[in-house]
């Protein structure tokens, strides 16, 4: 029907971004040497400030009163300041540090300076605000504030790779009605030209290094990653977690701006299995690296949440089916495992399955429900599945609530749930007891962490193997264009049902462990949206924020979505609001999620002439019936 291409508007937008037209310009006009000097002075002042006292009472958490020894948030400023200095020296061409700026851009310096500035000013303002006034600041605090400001100004004066100048005749349809208002257009244009731009700068191929160096880099990266993660998980109070988040976000952004991240992904692509092994070892080392049950508990919950998100990723990310009630499958698995766990509150309290049998039971129960839900709805296209799964999710919770012997048969004890679920015992190794491994004592949560890690690895294997196979390709084909996929011989219903059932049973598997970790199962967490994970909305957000169709994306998304409500207590009432806002912002500015799919590997293959996001005859939103017209 649509014989006329509708891409004319798109075309105009695409032509403006030519990689050849590079623009290098500072934000603050200063001679280059002056800018460099100011930057370095800022770095030195910042670092020096962290050794001073910032406030004279110990009321502010983290004890910032000690002179000569940085503590609490000062450590973050110090680390960020040192990183800024190193990257600055690298970008200025200092021998020995040049590898820090493989793309010869100053953008990373600016981003790190921004991070240093933000975290320091946040600290200073927090001190003043929490203790009641600027009077509570010691001179060190002022030095830090001024030093980071100087640093930022110096960095802003460096030559920054920027987005090319906008075409003077460009039209901005995305502004809607405002696109005819000259002031709005000028402002928008100015904002667009403000953006740094570094993604297409060439970097040397890292795989030319000797093999052992490449492996060493991957190993070190895994160790640093573990260290940073452990530090972040173990942050004890809100302020330092926020400061940590600021530093990490800007540091990662800077790594990508310097081209190091791109080189690193080239390395991991070249040594895929080695990198995977190192990642696994780092995760394995986590309970040994810190010896606190509380943080091991955090780790288990993140792994459970991440595994479920990975299962959902098969359904949403690979196959493109919107499942709004996915958490119910976690619930089905958890309840099934609880019923066969030997808990005195189970209706079969005499029955106690060994773990492998309980896990299979949980998976099978979820699988059955998955097929029951999927079979009637997956034949239809469009939004039916979303609505039915949303309904199923709620029905599950309500039914489980009602099977209490009063409103219905006694199966689940209603809102009281099934409690006193005994700890698992695997090959005589009771996960509830502490065990000494060398000099380290592994507590209950550490045991469960290790078990869950094993399950996560299995799920990752299932995900990657399924994704890269005939069946996985047909899932993606269906996501991309269901009509074309069926015309290529794919039985859409069958293939979608397999994805749906597989996703459900993986959630069921995670549910069996979760039942034992928490000792009890109750209906309340298995809802569509809530302030704390797991709930279907959070799971979906973990997949979408992290990066659909990737392995690490949903796990990272799950970790963030689990940690942020856990660590930022003050959000409490505003949490859903903040969560919604974050979702909107990410969808606007980074729709592919934190970890984009595929392109990473392809970056090294594709030549310069690539035209991003161009579809000549876009009609993938054509309604079902007009297939191929």
């Amino acid at each position: 029907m649509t014989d006329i291409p509708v891409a004319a508007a798109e075309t105009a937008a695409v032509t403006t971004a030519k990689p050849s037209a590079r623009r290098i310009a500072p934000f603050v006009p200063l001679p280059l040497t002056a800018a460099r000097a100011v930057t370095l002075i800022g770095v030195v002042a910042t670092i020096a400030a962290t050794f001073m006292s910032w406030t004279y009472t110990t009321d502010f958490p983290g004890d910032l009163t000690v002179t000569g020894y940085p503590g609490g948030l000062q450590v973050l400023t110090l680390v960020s300041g040192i990183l800024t200095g190193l990257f600055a020296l690298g970008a200025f061409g200092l021998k020995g540090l040049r590898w820090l700026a493989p793309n010869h851009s100053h953008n990373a310096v600016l981003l790190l300076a921004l991070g240093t500035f933000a975290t320091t000013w946040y600290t200073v303002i927090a001190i003043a605000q929490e203790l009641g006034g600027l009077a509570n600041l010691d001179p060190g605090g002022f030095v830090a504030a001024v030093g980071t400001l100087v640093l930022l100004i110096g960095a802003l004066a460096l030559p920054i790779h920027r987005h090319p100048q906008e075409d003077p005749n460009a039209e901005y349809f995305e502004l809607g009605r405002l696109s005819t208002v000259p002031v709005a257009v000028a402002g928008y244009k100015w904002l667009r030209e403000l953006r740094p731009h570094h993604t297409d700068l060439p970097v040397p191929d890292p795989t030319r290094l000797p093999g052992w160096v490449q492996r060493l880099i991957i190993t070190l990266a895994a160790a640093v990653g573990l260290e940073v993660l452990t530090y972040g998980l173990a942050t004890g109070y809100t302020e330092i977690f926020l400061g940590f988040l600021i530093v990490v976000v800007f540091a990662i952004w800077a790594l990508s701006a310097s081209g190091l991240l791109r080189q690193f992904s080239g390395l991991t692509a070249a040594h895929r299995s080695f990198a995977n092994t190192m990642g696994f070892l780092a995760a394995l080392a986590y309970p040994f690296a810190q010896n606190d049950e509380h943080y091991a508990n955090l780790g288990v919950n993140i792994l459970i949440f991440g595994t479920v998100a990975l299962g959902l990723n098969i359904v949403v990310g690979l196959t493109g089916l919107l499942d709004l009630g996915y958490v119910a499958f976690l619930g089905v698995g958890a309840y099934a495992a609880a019923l066969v766990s030997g808990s005195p509150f189970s209706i079969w309290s005499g029955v106690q399955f060994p773990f492998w049998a309980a896990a299979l039971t949980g998976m099978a129960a979820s699988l059955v429900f998955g097929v029951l839900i999927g079979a009637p709805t997956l034949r239809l296209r469009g939004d039916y599945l979303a609505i039915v799964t949303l309904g199923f999710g709620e029905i599950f919770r309500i039914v489980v609530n009602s099977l209490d012997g009063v409103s219905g048969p006694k199966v689940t004890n209603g809102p009281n749930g099934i409690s006193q679920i005994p700890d698992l015992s695997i090959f005589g190794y009771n996960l509830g007891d502490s065990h000494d491994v060398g000099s380290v004592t592994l507590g209950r949560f550490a045991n469960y962490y290790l078990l869950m890690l094993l399950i996560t690895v299995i799920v990752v294997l299932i995900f990657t193997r399924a994704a890269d196979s005939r069946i996985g390709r047909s899932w993606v084909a269906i996501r991309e264009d269901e009509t074309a996929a069926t015309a290529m011989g794919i039985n859409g219903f069958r293939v979608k049902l397999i994805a749906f059932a597989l996703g459900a049973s993986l959630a069921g598997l995670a549910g069996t462990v979760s039942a034992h970790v928490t000792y009890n199962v109750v209906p309340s967490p298995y809802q569509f949206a809530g302030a704390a994970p797991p709930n279907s909305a959070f799971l979906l957000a973990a997949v979408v924020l992290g990066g659909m169709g990737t392995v690490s994306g949903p796990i990272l998304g799950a970790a963030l979505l689990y940690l942020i409500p856990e660590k930022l207590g003050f959000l409490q009432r505003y949490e859903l609001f903040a969560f919604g806002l974050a979702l909107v912002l990410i969808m606007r500015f980074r729709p592919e999620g934190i970890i984009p799919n595929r392109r990473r590997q392809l970056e090294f293959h594709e030549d310069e002439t690539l035209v991003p996001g161009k579809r000549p005859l876009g009609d993938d939103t054509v309604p079902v019936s007009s297939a191929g017209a």
Partner: protein
Amino acid sequence: MTTITKEQPTPAQAPDGGPLLQASGVIMRFGGLTAVRDVDLTVNSGEIVGLIGPNGAGKTTFFNCLTGLYVPTEGTVSYRGEILPPKPHLVTQAGVARTFQNIRLFSNMTVLENVLVGRHTRTREGLLSALIRGPRYHKAEARSRERAMEILEFIGLADKADHLSRNLPYGEQRKLEIARALASEPGLLLLDEPTAGMNPQETRATEELVFAIRDQGIAVLVIEHDMRFIFNLCDRVAVLVQGEKLVEGTSDIVQQDERVIAAYLGEPFEGAPADEGDAAVEQAEAGFGAEAEAEAGAGTRAEAGADAGIAADDAGEEQENDR
């Protein structure tokens, strides 16, 4: 061009000249609108058959009826003597593959993956074998990749196997759609306006490609507006106007038929969509070439111009972007 060694002895089953596809009495109604009226069409093996007609004549709808995307209101379609169920995947399984008028690639998959999806019906590996990854799985996967690369080689896209398909230039996207269809090892290939938006050289190359496909024993049914393309290529041409088959026969017969000329000149048929922009006429002339049949050329100009012109514009922009 390299040749593809076919796994299945498809051409042997139906001897040259025997009927491969038989559509009889196909009617497709959308509410009050009858888009296809009682059309019979036969494609014999080893043949290239053309399907032409003004915009909105029902050609694409007819294709959709053949491939099971639409369930025809009446009539049957049989392939190698067996009635095709109106399910797209079963039709492809049986050996009829198609391309789309509006390119429908899997845009976020690589070129190679697109072709591998085309191999879906010719491979068996399910979820379990993908998870276990035994030797049989590896063998089948390697075989699939080998075949897919052969096809890409044949089409001329082997060097772009790792590119995302949406980053390909327009002409290559069209080629990739054909490659993907060929990967299903069809006995009959349906092409819906394969040269829409192409420049003369690309059109010429596509012509060669269609001949090469036929030479492998795959029959081809092709919808096209470019008359020169159709009359060069086809053993037989059927003309569809307002859902009805007006004429069918060799190129000469069709070119001489007055009703065809009238239809293409835009005689006042009711609801015939002929007013799609005269500006594109010049563009289209480039596509025809000077030595095109005078009558047919004049007759088709307005219609084909509208289509090819718009598409050519688009292709032009595409090439600009690529530089």
